[in-house]
């Protein structure tokens, strides 16, 4: 029953014929040379089951290939695992957890001459052992050093010659050859053929002749060398005597080796005899040959003579008329000269020659052999016994140090330590550098650098090291010396001979020498051996395989450099040798390359293309991109150019874009360097305005960049971990349901206004508010203390309709609140008509105005307070009413601030979210500890009173963070001001305040809104002749300090400026608050003081943060010595470090 339902495929192998169509032989593609990828491994049993199942269930046979196997893609499994293997049960965990140190392995990326992507990435190591450096000439060499170097060089040469001992070798060879000739001539020995023997002997003889010549030359050289060594040594000795000190410990000892006089003489004589006999033989041979030649030529000559004579006879018989014919006929014909017989060999002459030569090139018999030995046994004269020039030379040498840079493929990979130059001009490094390399080494260079004292380093020379053969591995490489020389010209003012400049050993300056700085580096370069004994050498073929991945196009050849192409033949050969499967897709690029290379049609451009496929991917050609107005607009917008940052709906067609869109932008670009003098009073101001504009632009650009750096707090609203003491009421801030977009109408509502101490009884004031070209006005109220209590609404439109923070911050509009007096004139001229109608004319007299920048409202969210109205100095027809003041009961404080005031309340509806200030950290030159302390201080202050302004660091005009107290320092006010009221300090102070307030005010808070405020020093401020509250306040404070007042900078909120800086001075009994921009001053208890809150006080040496309950100047105590009321920045824990002023 079960068997009927279930189908269990058999595990047996299916015969091939079942899987193929009938009468079809299986066909094996691989045998036919087609590429077949490796099949994934499947267990035989599973394969059988599958085949059986397929045969039964899907009889279509389309599952099987021509070879009768199931169709399969090549195995996608990598050859080597890319993930460490999973823990197996058998291994103990401990063993698995054992940490093994592995050197950091760089990721192999595709590059020139690199390990092929197919091979498992290997790392190869080149060991460079730099053992030392010897200068063979150096500018600091003294004359003795030059000689010593020469001597050492000669001695080295001598030693090398001695080691090879060519003369001895040649002598032996000569001996052997002579013996061979002797034996060859020995007639007792049987000879296979006489002919060959003769030939060999002749060969031998010529060889003997050559060898003897060589030996003589070598011996002569040896002798000359020895002579030179001795000569140099003598020179050196005389030099040492002459200068009465020695610099080098070099000492040459000539060891005489006694020889047996007789034996030596015998040998010498035998040698000479042998030579003589050989020469004699040669000469005899030569003579014989010449004799032969002579004979033949003589025969010829005789024959010719005979013939001549016979002719003559004939001629004589023919005609006697030509007596001179004999002579005449002989001359035109070639007249063989009668050959002279060669001179016979003279033994005595030869012997003389040989002996002479022997005397020249060979040691005289019986003369002892001289063996020079160079030792460092000599003593160097100590410094105190040397003349000045020499001492200074030695000092100079001591100041010099040398180091080497190792350059691999022209990249610096490492450098040796800097070693002092020794007195013997040798530097020992003894450093081994292990270069882990990926690229095939192309060049290996050492650069010799010299440092003199603390001055800069100079590159003396470059030494090119050969790349070691692959057979040279560490341990087997010999130490090699590579010479280098430099072409630098050095002249020194001491004993040092310099380099590249002529000098002489002679007193008269003749026989000049020019030596260049030169030396030798002893080094050893070898391939390292890996842990398992395998040398870490990149395989030779790698140079070729490396191209593979890079070669996708023929043009790509250029991208890997033409150096690869030179090996193209080799590459093809290698490919043929290694029997690459041409159909394997892995090899396709290589095969293509080879086919291109071998066909000889490879297109090798002579340029290097950086992004080779860029052109294909370009959207449109560059010209079109530049021509099209639409693309230009799009690009400018994405670059966040201010004019286009918020450009909406860029039209589809170029024709729809007006030219004038770009006009402003282009004008601005043009004007960047042109100073416009029209808008400004004088050129200086124009220059300053331009300068500030540029500073502003750069700051804004930095701000825009900073805007793209996000912090978690910018994206995610998250509650702070609450303090246990104070659980804050949660306030929903994030669920703004896009109020901004709906926020077109905005409300400015001057609710009530008071205080008109303008004495005209019939004053009928009204208020007119204008903002963004909208004008609203209140109804007219009666009397000098009117109260309107009216709400005015003025719409607000953000520029370009963009309500983003950045855009709102750049709104520069002001709200103008003008107060007018409405006067009715009766214009009826005829009193009779008075009964029937009223005919009046309304006139408005401007009384004053208040200007409030929009940015203040935006940052403050709401403005509520009493503002002083700017009224003209003289209001014709109006007078102030003194008694009113008294009646209203304001005390003396009031009298200090005469004026008219308006009380108003302004807000925006719906609320706009003010942008937070930038948190970009500007770099600073302050002490790191101080900066940390400022951060801590600010954090502590912000925790207690988040609304109070606490300022510890500010940004100066160059964009650096500066500690604020550095700005305060007593500065002398101009002498003219002090001379006006010499006896009245209060009047002087007022005059100074007026002086400061007259410096033009240039707000930077509007343009830098929310970005940062730049503080210029008083000097810069006076130079620029423009600044805002801080600059004014700092200058005023500094002047007050120099007047001997106790003065502080007050950071707080004022109306209408918002966060601002005032100056506080301590008089005898009271405090005065100075507005630096207007020059006005207020007593502490003045109700109409515009300063509404005090955040912190800043003195020249400390900062005090207000930790009193209230911050209104009316209600606080300004005694900064009370730590309960004022938290000071520098205290006993952190004493004032004595910061120098930036002023």
């Amino acid at each position, binding site marked *: 029953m079960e068997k009927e339902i279930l189908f269990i495929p058999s595990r047996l192998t299916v015969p091939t014929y079942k899987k193929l169509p009938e009468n079809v032989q299986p066909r094996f593609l691989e045998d036919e040379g087609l590429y077949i990828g490796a099949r994934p491994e499947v267990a035989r049993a599973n394969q059988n089951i599958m085949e059986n199942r397929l045969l039964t269930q899907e009889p279509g046979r389309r599952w099987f290939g021509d070879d009768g196997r199931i169709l399969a893609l090549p195995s996608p499994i990598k050859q080597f695992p890319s993930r460490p293997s999973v823990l197996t049960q058998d291994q103990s965990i401990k063993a698995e957890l054992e940490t093994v140190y592995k050197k950091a392995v760089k990721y192999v990326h595709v590059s020139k001459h690199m390990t092929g992507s197919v091979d498992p990435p290997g790392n190869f190591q080149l060991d460079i052992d730099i053992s030392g450096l010897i200068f063979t000439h150096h500018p600091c060499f003294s004359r003795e050093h030059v000689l010593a170097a020469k001597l050492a060089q000669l001695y080295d040469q001598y030693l090398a010659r001695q080691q090879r001992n060519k003369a001895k070798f040649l002598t032996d060879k000569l001996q052997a050859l002579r013996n061979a000739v002797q034996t060859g001539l020995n007639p007792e020995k049987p000879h296979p053929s006489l002919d060959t023997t003769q030939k060999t002997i002749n060969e031998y003889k010529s060889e003997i002749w050559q060898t003897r010549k060589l030996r003589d030359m070598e011996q002569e050289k040896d002798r000359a060398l020895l002579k030179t060594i001795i000569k140099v040594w003598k020179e050196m000795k005389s030099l040492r005597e002459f200068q009465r000190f020695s610099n080098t410990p070099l000492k040459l000892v000539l060891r005489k080796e006694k020889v047996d006089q007789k034996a030596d003489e015998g040998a010498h004589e035998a040698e000479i005899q042998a030579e003589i006999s050989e020469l004699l033989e040669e000469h005899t041979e030569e003579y014989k040959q010449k004799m032969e030649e002579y004979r033949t030529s003589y025969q010829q000559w005789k024959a010719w003579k005979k013939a001549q004579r016979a002719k003559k006879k004939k001629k004589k018989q023919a005609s006697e008329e030509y007596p001179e014919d004999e002579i005449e006929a002989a001359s035109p014909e070639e007249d063989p000269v009668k050959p002279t017989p060669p001179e016979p060999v003279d033994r005595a002459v030869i012997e003389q020659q040989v002996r002479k030569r022997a005397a020249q090139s060979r040691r005289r018999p019986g003369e002892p052999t001289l063996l020079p030995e160079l030792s460092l046994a000599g003593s160097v004269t100590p410094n105190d016994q040397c003349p000045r020039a020499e001492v200074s030379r030695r000092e100079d040498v001591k100041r010099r140090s040398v180091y080497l840079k190792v350059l691999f493929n022209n990249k610096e990979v490492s450098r040796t330590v800097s070693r002092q130059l020794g007195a013997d001009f040798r530097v020992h490094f003894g450093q081994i550098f292990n270069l882990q390399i990926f690229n095939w080494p192309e060049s290996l260079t050492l650069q010799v650098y010299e440092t003199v004292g603390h001055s800069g380093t100079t590159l003396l020379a470059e030494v090119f090291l050969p790349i070691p053969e692959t057979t040279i591995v560490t341990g087997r490489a010999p130490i090699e010396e590579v010479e280098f020389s430099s072409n630098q010209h050095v002249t020194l003012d001491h004993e040092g001979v310099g380099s590249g400049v002529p000098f002489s050993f002679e007193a008269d300056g003749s026989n000049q020498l020019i030596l260049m700085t030169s030396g030798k580096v002893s080094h050893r370069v070898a391939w390292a051996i890996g842990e398992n004994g395998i040398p870490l050498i990149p395989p030779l073929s790698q140079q070729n395989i490396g191209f593979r991945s890079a070669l996708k196009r023929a043009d790509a050849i250029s991208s890997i450099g033409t150096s690869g192409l030179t090996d193209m033949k080799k590459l093809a050969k290698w490919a043929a040798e290694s029997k690459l499967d041409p159909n394997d897709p892995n090899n396709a690029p290589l095969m293509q390359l080879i086919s291109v290379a071998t066909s000889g049609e490879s297109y090798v451009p002579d340029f290097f293309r950086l992004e080779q496929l860029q052109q294909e991917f370009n959207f449109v050609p560059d010209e079109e991109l530049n021509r099209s107005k639409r693309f230009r607009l799009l690009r400018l917008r994405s670059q966040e150019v201010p004019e286009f940052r918020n*450009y909406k709906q*860029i039209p*589809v067609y170029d024709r729809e874009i007006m030219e004038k869109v770009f006009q402003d932008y282009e004008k601005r670009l043009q004007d960047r360097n042109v100073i416009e003098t029209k808008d400004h009073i004088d050129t200086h101001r124009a220059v300053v305005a331009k300068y500030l504009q540029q500073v502003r632009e750069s700051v804004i650009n930095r701000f825009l960049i900073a805007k*793209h750096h996000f912090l978690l707090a910018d994206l*995610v*609203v*998250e509650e702070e971990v*609450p303090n246990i003491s104070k659980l804050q009421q949660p306030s929903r801030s994030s669920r703004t349901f896009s109020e901004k977009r709906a926020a077109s109408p905005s409300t400015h509502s001057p609710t009530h206004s008071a205080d008109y101490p303008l004495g005209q009884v019939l004053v009928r004031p009204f208020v007119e508010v204008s903002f963004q070209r909208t004008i609203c006005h209140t109804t007219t109220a009666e009397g000098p203390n009117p109260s309107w209590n009216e709400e005015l609404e003025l719409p607000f439109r953000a520029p370009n309709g963009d309500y983003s923070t950045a855009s709102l911050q750049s709104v520069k509009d002001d709200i103008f609140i003008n107060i007018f007096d409405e006067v009715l004139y009766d214009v009826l001229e005829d009193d009779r008509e008075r009964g029937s109608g009223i005919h009046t004319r309304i006139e408005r007299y401007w009384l004053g105005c208040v200007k409030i920048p929009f940015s203040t409202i935006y940052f403050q969210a709401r403005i509520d307070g009493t503002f002083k109205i700017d009224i003209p100095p003289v209001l014709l027809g109006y007078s102030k009413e003194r008694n009113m003041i008294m009646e209203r009961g304001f005390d003396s404080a009031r009298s200090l601030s005469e004026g008219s005031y308006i009380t108003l309340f302004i807000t925006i509806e719906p609320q706009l979210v003010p942008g937070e200030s930038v948190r970009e950290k500007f770099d600073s030159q302050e002490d790191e500890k101080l900066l940390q302390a400022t951060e801590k201080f600010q954090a502590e202050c912000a925790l207690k009173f988040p609304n109070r302004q606490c300022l510890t660091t500010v940004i100066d005009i160059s964009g650096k963070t500066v500690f604020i107290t550095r700005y305060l320092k007593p500065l002398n006010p101009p002498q003219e001001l002090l001379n006006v009221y010499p006896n009245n300090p209060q009047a002087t102070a007022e005059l100074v305040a007026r002086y400061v307030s007259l410096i033009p005010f240039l707000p930077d808070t509007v343009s830098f809104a929310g970005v940062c405020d730049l503080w210029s020093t008083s000097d810069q401020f006076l130079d620029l002749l423009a600044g805002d509250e801080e600059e004014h306040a700092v200058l005023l404070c500094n002047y007050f300090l120099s007047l001997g007042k106790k003065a502080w900078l007050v950071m707080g909120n004022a109306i209408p400026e918002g966060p601002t800086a005032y100056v506080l001075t301590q008089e005898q009994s009271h405090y005065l608050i100075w507005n630096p921009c207007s020059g006005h001053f207020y007593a502490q208890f003045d109700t109409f003081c515009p300063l509404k809150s005090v955040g912190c006080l800043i003195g020249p040496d400390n900062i005090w943060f207000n930790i009193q309950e209230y911050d209104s100047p009316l209600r606080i105590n300004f005694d900064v010595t009370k730590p309960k009321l004022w938290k000071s920045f520098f205290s006993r824990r952190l004493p004032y470090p004595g910061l120098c002023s930036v002023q």
Partner: protein
Amino acid sequence: MAAANPSVFLLMVNGQVESAQFPEYDDLYCKYCFVYGQDWAPTAGLEEGISQITSKSQDVRQLLVWNFPIDVTFKSTNPYGWPQIVLSVYGLDMFGNDVVRGYGAVHVPFSPGRHKRTIPMFVPESTSKLQKFTSWFMGRRPEYTDPKVVAQGEGREVTRVRSQGFVTLLFNVVTKDMRKLGYDTGPADTQGILGPSLPQGIPR
């Protein structure tokens, strides 16, 4: 506007926020809004909306069905900044505080026709265990300052999120004049009416 030579193309989207799967939560509502580039402007319809609170269905699917309609028309000159719909789901936690349950965003489908989209939702994570506890305790989970953050890539690297739940949306998209302006989004024959396209991954 001359029909032969249009200077803008129109994209009309209607559809609905159909349902959501939040196995852990109940009584949720959702808000949607559109985020689009500078070259886009809504011409008709509402670009944001807030749905009713819905409870889980009683069956095994435990679906939260809102069926909250979307109907908005945009005009644009540039496909750059193609509108995305940003969804944020809120609900009450066990203390009765209104907390966020998920944010998600998806582009309005490019091709005309009927499209069904299922968006995985996620919420920002607390930065520490302590904050996680306090935020849970006080009902003040971390939220994005602006839900539109999820439609932009900038600044996301500073946040960590946890995914929870899915919201299924249905869009019916009609475009006008796209082809005349050279933008080809739909299949070869725009004449042919596309049948209801099936969500990918489910076999026929």
